[in-house]
């Protein structure tokens, strides 16, 4: 139901949110290149797509979706309109945010909830992926408290997702405002974003929780590597 409603209203949702992003004077100078790269990386391939990104602000998923494809593309290619795992607390603050979360295909996640709740969320993601959908997740499990990709304190949920849907293609996305110093709610107005994409093929010989940890470590490691490249090359994107 949520999928059908969100897809029917995608153009309205997208252009409203894009308008807000432009009102805040956010920019992605390499947007055209990123969109072309995303189209080339994902192409006409069908099947599940798991997008793994670093996490610093509340609007990371919005910025990433904006970076990856224009609204009309999401209208004609529903599978590119990603589902997002979002903190339940943040997307149920008021009716407006609740509606946006619904139309933005957010799957609420109860942070610090019981293990069964986490398992239910992962089951939902596995179900979406099995239907050939794309899902955006933040492997760190929360906005990084250290301001960099947190390679010490991350969750292993993404590893579980990969194990449960081995056919899913994994795309790592590193996005960061050039002025972003640490985690926060919203990037400063006028922020310029650096975005990079990289296909990733995590593998493991382990199963169960050990496999979850191994796969998650590889994905977070890839994001950390991309971040390292950012700090070396970000100036080139200005």
């Amino acid at each position, binding site marked *: 139901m949520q999928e059908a409603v969100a897809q029917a209203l995608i153009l309205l949702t997208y252009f409203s949110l894009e308008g807000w992003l432009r009102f805040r004077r956010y920019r992605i100078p390499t947007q055209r290149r990123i969109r072309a790269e995303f189209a080339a990386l994902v192409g006409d391939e069908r099947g599940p797509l798991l997008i793994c990104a670093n996490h610093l602000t509340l609007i990371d998923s919005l910025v990433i979706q904006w970076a990856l494809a224009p609204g009309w593309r999401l209208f004609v290619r529903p599978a590119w309109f990603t589902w997002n795992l979002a903190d339940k607390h943040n997307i149920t603050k008021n009716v407006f945010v609740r509606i946006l979360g619904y139309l933005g295909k957010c799957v609420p996640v109860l942070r610090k909830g019981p293990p069964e709740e986490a398992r239910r969320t992962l089951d939902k993601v596995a179900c979406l992926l099995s239907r050939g959908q794309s899902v955006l997740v933040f492997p760190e499990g929360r906005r990084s408290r250290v301001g960099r990709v947190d390679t010490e304190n991350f969750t292993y949920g993404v590893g579980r997702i990969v194990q449960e849907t081995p056919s899913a293609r994994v795309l790592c996305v590193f996005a960061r405002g050039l002025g972003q110093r640490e985690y926060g709610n919203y990037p400063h107005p006028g922020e310029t974003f650096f975005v990079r994409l990289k296909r990733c093929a995590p593998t493991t010989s382990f199963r169960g929780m050990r496999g979850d*940890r191994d796969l998650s470590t590889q994905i977070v490691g890839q994001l950390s590597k991309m971040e390292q490249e950012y700090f070396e090359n970000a100036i080139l994107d200005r």
Partner: protein
Amino acid sequence: MDTKTAFGKIISIIKPFVKNTTAFGAATDGTRIIEDLGVNSARLVDIILAFEDEFGIEVDDESADRVRTLGDAVQMILQKTAPAL
């Protein structure tokens, strides 16, 4: 292995993940690992994997989910290390 030995080993495995050292100092069977000791829920997986290594056992998801207190951990380990009859 007796309960006391298992408890001692569990305490030493959990120690590096504990945030509430006061509660840890007075830990009993009923002490809750996440709520009382302040262990990050994501790190619970690391603790379970450390149990597997230390005690030579395998812990499935369902058993892991049932571990809420130190006493739960002791019981799980005693069950899994008990010789088969």
